[in-house]
């Protein structure tokens, strides 16, 4: 397995995979940080992040997953490398090695964005200390939907030589997932799409916001964690992994 990881690393050298991922992450950070200026938002900053960021994650993380998975799989498609790899190594192992490598890139982005969120909070001087328990929940509820989306995209990218297909499916899924967050009237919509779980697992609500006073009398509160959705998503991840691996093992190369 170690040699397969090494092989993945060698294949992605000078391919700017990490750089592309981190460039998108940099855009993510540049987009979300300059907005906390008012005194009200400094007062509410820590909780406001937990309220706002799931929406940003629902746009960025799936698109990042599409790009990273496509980049890693396209290397094999272009040179007809899967056939050669399958001669020397078990297909399941190839699937696992590429998956772990890609997930490592994704998780590095999730961790960096999480760490930067906290660092930025301290830098601008959010009032009070960081609610670390809630932030750990947030990290978990960002990482697991990202893993599920990446698994889906990775399997599509590996199975289709034409990378336009995973891109279109992923973009439409991201679109649906983002929109589902604006439709709390249809909670089933979030739960029926892997892209919707960023919204389904968000656990902070905004109260007291008005058009006139905006955040002056507003506050954020925990509205409850949807553990059932989380458990469903974990099972979906396991199911997608097993199905994806099996599809790849049976695929005609």
């Amino acid at each position, binding site marked *: 397995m170690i040699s397969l990881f090494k092989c993945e690393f060698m294949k992605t050298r000078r391919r700017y995979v990490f750089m592309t991922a981190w460039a998108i992450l940099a*855009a993510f950070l540049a987009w979300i940080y300059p907005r906390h200026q008012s005194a009200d938002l400094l007062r509410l900053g820590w909780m406001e992040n937990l309220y706002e960021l799931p929406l940003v994650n629902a746009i960025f993380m799936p698109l990042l997953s599409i*790009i990273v998975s496509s980049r890693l799989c396209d290397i094999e498609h272009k040179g007809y490398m899967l056939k050669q790899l399958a001669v020397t190594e078990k297909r399941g192992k190839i699937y696992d090695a590429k998956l772990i490598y890609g997930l490592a890139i994704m998780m590095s982005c999730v961790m960096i964005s999480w760490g930067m969120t906290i660092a930025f909070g301290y830098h601008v001087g959010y009032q009070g200390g960081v609610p670390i328990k809630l932030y750990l929940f947030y990290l978990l509820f960002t990482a697991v939907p990202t893993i599920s989306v990446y698994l889906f995209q990775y399997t599509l990218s590996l199975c289709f030589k034409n990378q*336009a297909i995973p891109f279109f499916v992923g973009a439409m899924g991201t*679109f649906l997932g983002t*929109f589902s967050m604006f439709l709390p009237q249809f909670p089933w919509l979030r739960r029926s799409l892997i892209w919707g779980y960023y919204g389904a697992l968000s656990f902070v609500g905004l109260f007291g916001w008005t058009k006139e006073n905006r955040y002056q009398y507003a506050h954020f509160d925990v509205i409850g964690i949807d553990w059932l959705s989380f458990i469903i998503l974990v099972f979906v991840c396991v199911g997608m992994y097993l199905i994806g691996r099996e599809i790849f093992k049976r695929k005609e190369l």
Partner: protein
Amino acid sequence: MLRKLLKAERMKLRRSPVWLAFILMPVIPAVLGTANYIYNQGILTKEWISLWTQHTLFTDYFFLPIMLGIYCSYLMRLEHGNNNWNKVFTMPVSRSSVFLAKLITAAIMLLLSMIWICVLFVISGYAAGLTNPPWLTIAKWCIFGTLGGMVTVAIQILISMNIKSFAQPVGIAFLGGLSGLVFLAKNLGHIWPYSLMSYGMNANAPQKIAESGGYGTFVIICAGYIALFTIIGNRIAVRRDIA
């Protein structure tokens, strides 16, 4: 010559999945945006304009640039694969026409998408109980959105021609769409190439186009960008050494 190249491009796209995506993609904001509009009519009081904001909210900033990025990448991927550039550039056609043919093909696709978005918008409006659609305004959104989108198409074709990877130009389109949002927020939407599509389609503040010099200025800026990227693309294509 150009007509033959356009025909060749059309043949290459036959039975391609990109058509399906361009049909399905706008249906998502049409259905979900309309649902959002219906459930929030207390806040969204400007009828057709409010509905338009719901349809175009994320489409303009994120998903349409990405779709155009994918489409341009796909057009160029056909040539990047199997050393097809060698075959294309040994054909008895000028290299600049090849670039131009791809640009026109992508622009036609964009125009068809815009028309489809507007058709879905009108249907959604009627479904939401609205009457008397503002036809002229819708036509303006469609025409100027296409014009602004053509700038994005020109850049993306240029990028996809120079980057062999399928994913990276799409990533750039995504970042471009995002940068467009930032420039729009800073009131510089009328000069930034990736903002022009959402600027042309912008129903949130239609007066902005008038403030920034009117539709004439908008057309000149778009035409200038399209000409600039086309010239750069043509020059690169002409000087290109094929490997």
